[in-house]
């Protein structure tokens, strides 16, 4: 298995773990009482911002650890640059990831139009962000294994 394939698998696992653990943590701390609109927006705003921050930091740490483990176990250096194949696969993974997020964004707007609770819109948006991340990494994995 190549460096890029392993990296894509690590990205998928990391995304699932980070989002899963953080969501479980926030779910446990969800206020039991009914929130007014202002508190609700504050809760979800903080949820998204902290998730973004935690996600970026965790991805950096996981990437560093992965590179160290890769070097130690395979005695091979990770590719130091992105060539034309890497760039093509990156473009395809971005396209698929964005497509999933746009779909989620539209669904979130539909939930507003249908007068569903505001929490639904945020949950759909967060899920779309998560699925878009997974789709991007899965697309990379697919193309590195099967070709472009």
């Amino acid at each position: 298995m190549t460096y890029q394939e392993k990296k894509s698998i690590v990205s998928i696992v990391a995304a699932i773990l980070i989002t899963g653990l953080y969501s479980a943590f926030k779910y446990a701390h969800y206020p039991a009482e009914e929130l007014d609109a202002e508190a609700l927006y504050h809760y979800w705003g903080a949820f998204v911002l902290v998730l973004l921050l935690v996600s970026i930091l965790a991805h950096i740490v996981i990437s560093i650890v992965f590179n160290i483990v890769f070097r130690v176990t395979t005695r091979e250096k990770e590719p130091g640059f992105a060539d034309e194949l890497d760039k093509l696969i990156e473009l395809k993974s971005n396209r698929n990831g964005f497509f999933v997020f746009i779909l989620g964004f539209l669904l979130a707007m539909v939930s507003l139009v249908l007068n569903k609770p505001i929490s639904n819109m945020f949950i759909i948006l967060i899920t779309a962000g998560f699925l878009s991340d997974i789709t991007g990494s899965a697309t990379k994995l697919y193309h590195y294994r099967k070709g472009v």
Partner: protein
Amino acid sequence: MGKTLVGNHIRKLRFNHNEMTQQQLADKVGVTRQTIVALEKGNYSPSLELAFRFAQVFELPLEEIFYYGKHIESP
């Protein structure tokens, strides 16, 4: 996806050039080793620029490195 219509003789040419490794060839043409792997497996068609870089390294015309569609090996 998968196998492309553009095939190549890169694997054979590498061995005819002092058993050049995939990494050595990758360094010469300016790609990663994984791209050479993908090319040899037929999972990727190179850009025209990359194809010309292979031609330079092997000092052969393009059609002796790459072929289009089905190819019958000469005996």
